């Protein structure tokens, strides 16, 4: 038989002013299992807590009900108090007779009755409490950052500077991401490479950072503090331990391949470094284009390499490590506008380029060494049309969202053209100009004063006549059609999640929104967390944003990781779901509704009469379970239950309230 003690708090006059606390205590004495009940002025005070401890000893109490303020206020206080006693901290229930009784009612009689009912409910529940024990899980103080763009770089550096180990994973041969492709950054017109390459070098030199390029996420298991991560190192065919990055192989390789880094506007070799400042500054072989790997002939690079670093036998390898936290910073790519906008030529016109292509064109290290030249004939364009919102804010053809950075970089592009090509004309077709950010509106204003012609309306068609591109569109402010002849057209296209984000999200058990961006745990209050504890996000994988926002978010995610790592172990709530496997029929309804992927179906040995059988049952990973109880309501056999809020307990609460 349980030995319940009930303690009714006056909370000064907060409760006692409306509720007859003595009557509540008296009424509780009649409840089954209650061996002691009393009231006291301030239960949460030091003497109040001491009294509870004393009474536990005196009356050999094994479960406690406290009638006081909301459990959200002092449940933890009283649980901590019970740690010093023989009573398990989870053998405690709190009846909320302040916020949900004395403060909201005036009729003393009725309020007292309600308080008694609430106390009775707590007594009924506590009767079915059983000891629960928090377990602690060790935290592996090593972080994994997936994606080596500016977000990943910043996050890795912040964590590493705080003294923790970091692995930075990048699927491309070099880190740097999109930012290092850009020419200048708005609104200050800092050279993008000049501010990002030092960070890249810092990453490679940092003693706490393990840089893993040409690597992809293979598999993830485990939970916060203890993720078991398998990483696939793609074959590079160049031994980076020996290679000094002299670059001789690159000059001798006979195979030319379209350069991804220069957005298709120049060529690289089959053995290559993505760009001059690549980190690591060592080449890799592109197996899809290498003659030796494709046809078995050539091997020039191997012959010329003075250090014999080339290894055509190289294979993909995998390795596994344990991480305490993971940051997703997989970034974005530009939408494939060619398929969506045949009216803009669908990619048939060489001189209709994307914003990122323009960045390469105007970049001093780009294919034209910074001279803005038309890709078709390498002449300098005089009339340039910039079309904004290509794919953005266009639910019918592209994406419904705004890509946030395009208004500003369109202004930057206009500014750069006007600056570099004297007597040039720039026409910017826009829907709205959105410039929320420090110094942004001023920059836009300056661009207009530079002479950029802003035309409010969309371009309906781009076609070619006499070597020039004709843009036909609407000027919605004048309410008429306009036709602009251009030598070069720049489409400021929508940002979309990077290829392969779906796989990463799936492996990590986190969520994606309808557009494929990674879903944050709460849009306002938990913007860099995901719903899986220990997995954080940074940068454009979460949604379109510019560099300052990306870096801020990366540092925020790093701060979250450092916060987690500041303790060597973390307590887990014992109020998780539990499966009674003897009852479980293995239907999997719980697995489907669990938002944390904490439930998996497993096979167990069982017996049916004398026969040994294998049976499928649900199994809960208590490290992942957050205790929502959705599974318990979905279970048709009642096999799965939520500790601390069991079916039995809630039914008893209902019974007690409906007396």
């Amino acid at each position, binding site marked *: 038989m349980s030995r319940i003690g009930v303690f009714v708090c006056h909370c000064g006059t907060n409760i006692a002013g409306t509720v007859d606390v003595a009557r509540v205590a008296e009424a509780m004495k009649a409840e089954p299992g209650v061996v002691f009940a009393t009231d006291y002025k301030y239960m949460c005070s030091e003497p109040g807590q001491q009294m509870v401890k004393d009474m536990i000893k005196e009356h050999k109490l094994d479960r406690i009900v406290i009638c006081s303020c909301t459990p959200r206020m002092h449940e933890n206080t009283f649980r901590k108090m019970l740690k010093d006693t023989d009573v398990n901290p989870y053998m405690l229930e709190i009846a909320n007779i302040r916020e949900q009784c004395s403060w909201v009612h005036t009729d003393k009689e009725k309020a007292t009755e309600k308080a008694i009912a609430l106390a009775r409910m707590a007594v009924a529940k506590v009767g079915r409490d059983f000891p629960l024990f928090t377990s602690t899980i060790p935290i592996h103080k090593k972080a994994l950052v997936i994606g080596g763009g500016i977000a990943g770089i910043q996050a890795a550096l912040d964590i590493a500077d705080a003294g923790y180990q970091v692995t930075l994973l990048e699927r491309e041969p070099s880190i740097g991401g999109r930012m290092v492709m850009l020419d200048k950054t708005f609104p200050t017109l800092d050279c993008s490479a000049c501010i990002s390459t030092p960070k890249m070098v810092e990453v490679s030199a940092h003693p706490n950072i393990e840089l893993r390029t040409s690597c992809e996420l293979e598999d993830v298991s485990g939970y916060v503090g203890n993720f078991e991560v398998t990483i696939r190192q793609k074959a590079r065919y160049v031994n980076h331990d020996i290679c000094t990055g002299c670059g001789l192989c690159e000059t001798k390789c006979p195979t030319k391949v379209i350069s991804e880094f220069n957005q298709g506007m120049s060529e690289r070799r089959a053995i290559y470094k993505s760009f001059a400042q690549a980190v690591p500054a060592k080449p890799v072989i592109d197996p899809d284009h290498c003659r030796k790997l494709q046809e078995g002939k050539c091997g020039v690079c191997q012959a010329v390499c003075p250090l014999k670093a080339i290894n055509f036998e190289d294979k993909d390898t995998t390795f596994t490590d344990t991480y305490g936290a993971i940051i997703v910073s997989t970034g974005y790519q530009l939408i494939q506008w060619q398929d969506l906008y*045949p009216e803009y030529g*669908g990619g*048939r016109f060489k001189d209709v380029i994307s914003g990122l292509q323009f960045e390469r064109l105007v970049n001093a290290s780009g294919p034209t060494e910074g001279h803005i030249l038309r890709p078709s004939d390498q002449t300098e364009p005089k009339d340039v049309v910039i079309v904004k919102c290509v794919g953005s804010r266009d639910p019918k053809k592209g994406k419904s969202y705004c890509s946030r950075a395009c208004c500003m970089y369109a202004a930057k592009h206009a500014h750069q053209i006007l600056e570099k090509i004297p007597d040039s004309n720039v026409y910017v077709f826009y829907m709205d100009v959105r410039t929320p950010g420090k110094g942004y509106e001023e920059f836009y204003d300056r661009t207009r004063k530079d002479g950029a012609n802003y035309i409010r309306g969309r371009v309906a*068609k*781009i*076609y070619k006549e*006499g070597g020039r591109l004709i843009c036909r569109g609407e000027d919605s402010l004048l309410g008429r059609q306009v036709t602009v002849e251009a030598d070069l057209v720049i489409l400021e296209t929508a940002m979309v999640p990077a290829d392969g984000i779906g796989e990463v999200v799936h492996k990590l058990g986190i969520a994606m929104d309808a557009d494929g961006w990674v879903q944050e745990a709460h849009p306002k209050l938990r913007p860099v967390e995901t719903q899986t504890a220990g997995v954080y996000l940074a940068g454009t994988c979460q949604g379109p944003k510019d560099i300052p926002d990306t870096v801020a978010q990366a540092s925020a995610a790093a701060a979250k990781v450092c916060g987690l790592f500041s303790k060597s172990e973390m307590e887990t709530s014992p109020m998780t779901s539990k499966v009674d496997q003897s009852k479980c029929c293995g239907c999997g309804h719980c697995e489907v509704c669990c938002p944390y992927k904490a439930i998996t179906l497993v096979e167990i040995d069982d017996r049916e009469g004398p026969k040994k059988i294998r049976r499928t049952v649900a199994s809960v990973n208590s490290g992942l379970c957050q205790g929502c109880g959705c599974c318990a309501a979905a279970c048709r056999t009642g096999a799965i239950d939520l500790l601390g809020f069991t079916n039995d307990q809630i039914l008893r609460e209902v019974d007690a309230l409906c007396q």
Partner: protein
Amino acid sequence: MQFSYYPGCSMDTTGITYKLSIEYICSKIGLVLHEIPDWNCCGATAAHSKNKMLALALPARNLAQAEEEGLDLDVAVPCASCYSRMKHTVVAARQDENMRRKLEEIIGMPYKAKADVLNFLEIFSRPEMKRACQEKMYRTLKGMKVACYYGCLTSRPVEVTGASSTENPMEMDEIVALTGAEPVEWDFKTECCGASHQVDAPKAARPLIERIIRNAKANKAQAIITACPLCNLNLDMREGEINKAKGTRYDLPVYQFTELLAVCMGAGAKDIGIHKHFFPAFDLLNEYLRKAGD
């Protein structure tokens, strides 16, 4: 191969070259067209801009007439406007059972909406048709650069036509390539030709024609190829007018795509009505036929 056939009102008049060339090809490759008995107006322009039900019911009667024949064939329609109207009716009747019943009630005869409506681009795009045409070609227009002009109604609205592309369709380009002619890449394949507004609002509509011709010319085409009697008429008839009014020197004959096929199958100029063109159309064909050694 057989089809029910709805010629529409223009085939004996403005679309005479289209008609003659189709007939010539039919005789060569054994394509049989069964003209729908007692067909009526398709309702283009007038009906569909005034009364939705009338616009659906007029083609419904034609299609019902075809069904009554009992041949159980798809309906071939040469004119893009007729095609669009009839396709609208088929789609409406298939999507909505109530609509189909209502149409039956209006036309006073059963209409099951079983048959598909096909334009001649769709028909000639079929692999077996291409093969049949290929077999019968013994002349070529090798090297003649042509701009294939589809007009708007063979592809739009895409919900009705199910066209693969409304901006850069390729069906006609592929068919015309059978003759050895070289379709050019250009940008006005599906632009508006002004349609009937060439009659009632010439000031607004003429520039539409001009920019089509201009773009074809700018992309080095020597002729424009159409698949619609009205598109053909508009371009063919106005080109000279524009030259006269604006002092331009456009020199692009306008052919139906079937004319090129027929010519390469051996049709003489008079067989398919080359002499009926408003804009001189004989010399260019002649030049290329001769170049190819015929």
